[in-house]
């Protein structure tokens, strides 16, 4: 299965998805009860963050491929619709894979 397929494919039944990091090529698994931020931190990445609840905008990250599932209150509805940014502290993915500019 190719990368482009996974960024179009629907989420797994258990709510998990994978995050691919554009710069390192690393792929990380995000389970239903984890945040993308937590997975990135556990993998040793230094992610700017503050409120951890989608209010402050500190963890804003560019989305390269895949479709985010926005849970934040920072982006405007128009920005959320556009789908090229995500707040990794609280938002998730609508597709089986998200590729982040990280």
């Amino acid at each position, binding site marked *: 299965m190719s990368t482009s397929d996974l960024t179009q494919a629907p989420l797994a039944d258990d709510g998990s998805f994978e995050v691919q990091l554009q710069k390192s090529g690393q792929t990380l698994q995000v389970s239903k009860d984890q945040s993308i931020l937590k997975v990135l931190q556990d993998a040793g990445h230094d992610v700017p963050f503050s409120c951890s609840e989608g*209010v402050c905008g500190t963890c804003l990250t560019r989305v390269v491929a895949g479709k985010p599932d926005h849970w934040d209150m*920072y982006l405007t509805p128009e920005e959320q619709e556009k789908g090229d940014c995500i707040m990794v502290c609280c938002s998730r993915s609508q597709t089986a894979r998200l590729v982040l500019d990280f």
Partner: protein
Amino acid sequence: MFIKNTWYVACALTELNALGSQPLGRTICNERMVFFKGPDGQVAAVEDFCPHRGAPLSLGKVCEGKLVCGYHGLEMGCDGKTVHMPGQRVRGFPAIKSFPVVERYGFVWVWPGDAAKADVAQMPSFAFFDNPEWAYGGGLYHVKADYRLMIDNLMDLTHETYVHANSIGQPEIDETPSQTSVEGDQVVLQRHMQGIQAPPFWQMAMSANGLDPQAKVDRWQICRFSPPSHIMIDVGVALAGKGGFDAAPEHKAYSVVVDFITPETETSHWYHWGMARQFKPADAALTDKIREGQGKIFNEDMEMLQLQQANITQWPDRKLLMLNIDAGGVQSRRIIDRLLAQENPTGITA
């Protein structure tokens, strides 16, 4: 525990106006509030707690009807929602509590309880405010004592003989029994003294009203408690034998002592006191003179109540006596307790 679903006097409008662009921080019924004038000039009250880092918003400034936090410049609106903050998007900021407010009779009234239940129709009404036939002067004391001690004080005026010996006190008060009656949520305590010499404060008032201050008088005190903690006291003297309280205006010097007692904490309250009078209402100098005299008299109460509270705090388990002279306070507290139970039906009592 306090009756919270009701209107309390928070401050005089003049007090808020005097602060200019500064907001007014005030704790009422254990709720820390900040009062300020919104964009339309109307007074608003919100929690004194910046949603950013918990700083007291009362340390900030009011700018174009927004309350600007003095710590990092968060701009709070009248409804408790953040309007703006430099360098931030505020859409997701959690709202803080806002309190219903009414401006009436020269005061800001606040409803510290459930905002959904706030009802302007429940505001008490007073004939002597905003009425050219009456004059009003008053002040504010912060008293470090349970607000119910002030109710006890005002619903038993026998203390005047001792606490206010040089102004309104006189032995005839002790010697004349009082009657207490309860009418619904109101407690009325009254005492009528006949053929006595007026005490100094009333001699002054008699002179001001063109009466001979040395003449024998009939004197009355009619204290009216209504919940949560407002006490209006008809006080005055009339030339002896002219009908006392019911005497024609030219024979008496008469006024209403106005007491708005607003709990701050369990052991402190805001005491808005004043006097409304019908004689010489246009005489501003007389209003000032009465205010000054009343302020001195009520300062004597404050001293007594604060040290009484200190004693009670030190000996919380000591039982106090309820004598016949305390019936007015006892009945008033009974009404407060009943309303508290109504407001907290789950059986939680303090």
